[in-house]
């Protein structure tokens, strides 16, 4: 697939359809491909697309779709939701963008492979639903399904929500069973209040406020974050207590509530391994149950649940007066 994409993008450069392309290139290791901006067909030589291209490229368009000429972007199915959400919010201009929707059958989590006890990995190739892993100690194999990224476990399906052309084989395939999407949220909800507090206390106290979650998030894309604005009165200071972490993460989740497409990038990039997506998913679950099913980015002209209401909406006392577990 990588070569097909590469060939097509080069063509588009050559016939002046595009002036720029956003894709992935090799990072320091073969398993940490990073987003890259390619300015010519020649640049495309280093383009990669394989099991380690998890990055959602849509956010890069905010800064890289200048008015002169079209920018090409490669979007996996899940990335197109973020793209639509950015269109909804007028953060990007579709006129300047050319989308190639590319097929994806899940991205791989290198840490999960390592957790299987496979060390000294030098190369990974896919063979059907199996990964063939070359290591310094010989060839190993594992099921791809066992080492998928957390975000791919609740895949929204193979269908692209928006595109100009497709390089994809399995567009019609139905989404995988997403019923497990809220399992962890449910599990937390079923804990006692004290247990939940202990869980989050433990998780959030790991936060080093590196802002990776914020920077990767396609919804969290303010020109200037309120936590960075000294005039806002809440600009972050040194991390001296646990509450500031909680406040940051609650507010961050709240700011993207109704806009978060559940792309899972926050959790993927967190260097401390905090399951941040569980905050966003809680909002998504509440929105779905209280205000009706809503998937941000499904189309580009939706009214978000927090900028909408019905007269019969549930009262906040529904939460405050719920029986305590």
């Amino acid at each position: 697939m990588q070569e097909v994409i590469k060939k097509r993008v080069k063509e588009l450069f050559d016939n002046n359809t595009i002036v720029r392309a956003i894709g992935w290139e090799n990072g320091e290791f073969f398993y940490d491909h990073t987003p890259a901006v390619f300015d010519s067909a020649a640049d495309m030589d280093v383009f990669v697309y394989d099991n380690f291209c998890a990055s959602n490229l849509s956010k890069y368009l905010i800064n890289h779709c200048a008015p002169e000429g079209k920018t090409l972007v490669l979007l996996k199915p899940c990335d197109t939701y973020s793209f639509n959400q950015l269109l909804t919010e007028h953060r990007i201009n579709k006129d300047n963008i050319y989308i190639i929707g590319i097929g994806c059958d899940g991205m791989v989590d290198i840490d999960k492979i390592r957790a299987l006890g496979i060390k000294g990995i030098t190369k990974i190739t896919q063979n059907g639903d199996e990964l063939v892993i070359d290591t310094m100690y010989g060839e190993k194999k594992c099921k791809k399904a066992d080492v998928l990224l957390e975000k791919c476990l609740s895949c929204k399906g193979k269908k692209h929500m928006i595109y100009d052309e497709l390089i994809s084989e399995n567009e019609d395939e139905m989404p995988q069973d997403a019923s497990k999407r809220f399992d962890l949220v449910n599990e937390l909800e079923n804990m006692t209040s004290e247990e939940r507090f202990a869980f989050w206390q433990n998780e959030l106290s790991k936060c080093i406020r590196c802002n990776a979650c914020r920077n990767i998030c396609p919804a969290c894309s303010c020109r200037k974050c309120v936590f960075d604005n000294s005039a806002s009165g809440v600009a972050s200071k040194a991390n001296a207590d646990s509450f500031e972490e909680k406040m940051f993460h609650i507010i961050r989740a709240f700011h993207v509530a109704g806009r978060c497409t559940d792309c899972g990038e926050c959790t993927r990039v967190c260097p401390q391994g905090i399951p941040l997506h569980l905050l966003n998913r809680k909002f998504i679950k509440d929105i779905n149950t209280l205000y009706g099913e809503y998937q941000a980015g499904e189309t580009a002209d939706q009214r978000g649940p927090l900028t909408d209401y019905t007269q019969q909406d549930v009262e906040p006392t529904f939460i405050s007066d719920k029986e305590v577990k």
Partner: protein
Amino acid sequence: MQVNSEFKPKIVAFCCNWCSYAGADLAGSSRLSYPADVKIIKVPCSCRVNPLFVLRAFEKGADGVIICGCHPGDCHYSTGNYYARRRMTLLFSMLDYLGIEKGRTRVEWVSAAEGVKFSTVMNNFVSKIYQLGENVKLGDLRCRK
């Protein structure tokens, strides 16, 4: 439930200018008492209350935050309290999810004519906060003198 007699909670009440603040005034002029632990901040509408303000209050040591606005359908600005209702429902649910006692936050609709309700709401809320005791989970320890 053990109630610490030393404990004097700090309670912030955000009241919309048109209904609940006037309801609080009516409670006052009707001499309908409620504990002095409640301090009212006037906002134009319940929709002016940013979740940040609620969290800020907790950060600075509040033990309870209550938001009062016009009854749904009666908002001075037509729709403000509808948005507030969704925002606060989700925020409160999130706080609960994080293991924070949900009794510490509340939204009540009190009209300008409901002095009695204002006083009742505040009395009930304060007694709930006394039951819950000091807000240790959310308080920023640095802010405690």
